[in-house]
């Protein structure tokens, strides 16, 4: 398929279905599905059929619209009205109102800053296209980047474009993507692999799942471009089995792309071939670590191994392997389409582009957001998130999940980029963002994340296996009012030791939530230990 043919396909897709007068786009991503959006969809379809309006009115399932807590969400076009919290019973009223006055009590104000302050690149098709229809994706310029790359660019030119964009890995560490690609490209041998890391195990995070559910072709296109650039012909998508909807849509997407010759042998009629297979993970957090993930695909126990050698040199079955995160791959096609310079013009000096966050906790609007790098925490939490509900006060925001830390009020005006977050003891991580108010106990928060690390440690190395268990024990002692100041000193020693001696990133970062809460909220630890009380009234004191 040439770019010209793609264009024609996109056009014929539009022509084949004359624009219906009304189109209802209803979110069928996991969040809204669990709130019953499939039933609403059916009710709407029945209602339309009953009134004989099929030719005028179409109901379309789309990916995540972002404001997941207000789901099920839907968008009525061309009226441009967004509805929230819709139920089956609302179907008649909605159909009745088409082209007239919207159903007042369901309206979700789409001019609120939740929507207007975002900048969508990764999520540009989310909530717009039907994730199960490749034609929808193609109609939005899908696969043109791949076709162009194959037709007009050398692998080196592709790598240069990605390097120029300044894109950094979205899986946590922020490693420069162009540099990683060129390392794999330079590695010798004729056999290489591309892996998409869709394990996403951070508690509360669902960015990658949402991208896969809402726009699966976007990820496949990014992988294919990467494969061409580094010289791989086989790819794997490592998805956790807890994401059945994402897996189903990926399977559909792979089949559709193969049928159109956009994946498989001789893509777009060129000599380039690329096959993608899905591998299911059993849901161990550590399997997101790249060497553990590779072991898992190889059919071994999912445990990390010491690096170097890095996967770029010695990866899947010993062959050079490129491994990137879902969101990283999702950024590739737009970079090729619009140019690296375009991408580099968004964001900050060292952190380019946008970042998707799962905004959760004590904010009015929780859900999935995409913002330009460099936006401040205050803008995210108070403008997009709508601030803290119920008259409470902001206390801290936790970023980066179990590898990250808690950021206190004094840094609210700090720009969100890799370096700034690291400077205050947290990290970008994969994009979990949990807002806390004064009803949260910071020792309890640290304990929550330590508990997570204890149960997710793979058990291979001593500092992480035993050290995290000992740290959890000490935190538990503190929150139950049984600890002494010596225990606190011991806790700090263990933090240092586990951080610097563990084998993989899990152990190396497990102490971060403790360290950052100790840095900014030390007095809360002291209150638990000396005064035997929990300032936030969360912990149980046995006094």
């Amino acid at each position, binding site marked *: 398929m040439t770019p010209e043919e793609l264009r024609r396909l996109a056009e014929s897709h539009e022509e084949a279905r004359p624009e219906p007068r009304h189109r209802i786009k209803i979110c069928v991503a996991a969040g809204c599905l669990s709130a019953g959006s499939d039933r609403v969809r059916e009710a709407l379809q029945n209602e339309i059929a009953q009134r004989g309006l099929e030719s005028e009115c179409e109901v379309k399932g789309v990916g995540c619209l972002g404001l997941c807590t207000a789901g099920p969400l839907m968008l009525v076009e061309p009226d441009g009205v967004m509805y929230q919290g819709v139920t089956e019973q609302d179907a008649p009223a909605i159909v009745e109102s088409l082209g007239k006055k919207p159903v007042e009590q369901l309206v979700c104000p789409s001019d609120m800053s939740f929507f207007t302050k975002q900048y969508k690149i990764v999520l540009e098709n989310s909530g717009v296209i039907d994730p199960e229809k490749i034609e929808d994706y193609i109609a939005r310029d899908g696969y043109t980047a791949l076709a162009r790359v194959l037709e007009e660019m050398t692998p080196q030119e592709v790598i240069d474009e990605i390097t120029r964009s300044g894109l950094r890995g979205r899986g946590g560490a922020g490693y420069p993507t162009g540099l990683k690609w060129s390392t794999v490209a330079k590695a010798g041998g004729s056999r290489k692999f591309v892996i998409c890391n869709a394990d996403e195990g951070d508690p509360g995070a669902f960015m990658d799942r949402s991208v896969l559910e809402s726009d699966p072709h976007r990820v496949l296109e990014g992988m294919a471009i990467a494969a061409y650039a580094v010289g791989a012909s086989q790819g794997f998508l490592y998805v956790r089995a807890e994401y059945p909807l994402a897996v189903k849509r990926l399977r559909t997407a792979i089949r559709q792309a193969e049928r159109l010759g956009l994946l498989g042998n001789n893509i777009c009629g060129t000599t380039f071939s690329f096959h993608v297979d899905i591998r299911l993970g059993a849901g*161990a957090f550590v399997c997101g670590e790249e060497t553990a993930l590779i072991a898992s695909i190889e059919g071994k126990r999912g445990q990390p191994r010491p690096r170097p050698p890095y996967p770029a040199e010695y990866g899947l079955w010993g062959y050079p392997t490129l491994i990137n995160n879902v969101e990283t791959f999702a950024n590739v096609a737009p970079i090729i389409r619009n140019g690296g310079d375009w991408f580099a013009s968004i964001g900050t000096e060292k952190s380019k582009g946008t970042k998707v966050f799962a905004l959760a906790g004590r904010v009015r609007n929780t859900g999935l957001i995409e913002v330009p790098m460099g936006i401040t925490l205050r803008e995210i939490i108070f403008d997009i998130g709508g601030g803290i509900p119920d008259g409470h006060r902001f206390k801290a925001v936790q970023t980066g999940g179990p590898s990250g830390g808690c950021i206190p009020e004094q840094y609210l005006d700090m720009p969100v980029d890799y370096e700034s977050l690291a400077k205050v003891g947290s990290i970008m991580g994969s994009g979990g963002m949990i807002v806390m108010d004064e009803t949260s106990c910071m020792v309890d928060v640290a304990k929550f994340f330590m508990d997570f690390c204890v149960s997710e*440690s793979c058990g291979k190395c001593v500092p992480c296996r035993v050290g995290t268990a000992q740290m959890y024990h000490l935190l538990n002692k503190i929150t139950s009012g049984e600890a002494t100041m010596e225990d606190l000193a011991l806790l700090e020693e263990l933090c240092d030791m586990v951080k610097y001696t563990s084998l993989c990133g899990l152990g190396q970062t497990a102490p971060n939530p403790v360290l950052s809460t100790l840095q900014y909220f030390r007095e809360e630890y002291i209150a638990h230990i000396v005064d035997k009380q929990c300032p936030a009234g969360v912990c149980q004191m046995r006094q």
Partner: protein
Amino acid sequence: MNQPVRVKTLKIDDRDVSGREDETILEVARQNGIFIPTLCNLEGLTPIGACRLCLVEIKGVSRLLPACVTRVEEGMEVYTQSERLQKYRRMVLELLFSERNHICSVCVVNGHCELQNMAQILGMTHVSVPYRFPRLPVDASHERFVVDHNRCILCTRCVRVCDEIEGAHTWDVMGRGIDSRVITDLSQPWGESETCTSCGKCVNVCPTGALFEKGKPVSERLKKRQFLPYLTMMREERR
């Protein structure tokens, strides 16, 4: 066939040493009589870098690297004895002692235990973290051998020797984190194992009293580990 092997020169604890490019820091240090403590490592088995006792500092590298799996490089400056390293090593040992029930006075290998030796050599005088005292089973179903999980340090030497040298792969690890445990076959009693050849290799490589032979006095329970390098060498020769 004979590819030239490049030799690298480096410094370990300010001493000039040299090593082949495929040698690790640990190997070169040992050749030069420089002591780096190890537990999971055993010559002849694939190194895994799990116990973290052999961590060393390398000038210009912010991370600490395990000597057992890190290859030598030209111009490297390695430090093996810094105060920081010694403190971490003692803490690794303390964590190991706290993890299970290491009651040396009643142990079958008291006096010949690598964990115990290491504690003496590294000057570990007490355990500052609380003992966890887990309840763990002992499996004496095998006609000749016993596995006592109370003394296992999860070094996986048994797993590796059985898989890589004997080729039986009777041992593996089950569970994760602090709940990890070595198992025979699919977590069946050792005595019922269909794969175990009763060769005794695992018992000989086990650094502690976790694996031991039935009915032998302590004096005869010295473990024999010299056979491993020999076996691996013979294999390489045949290739």
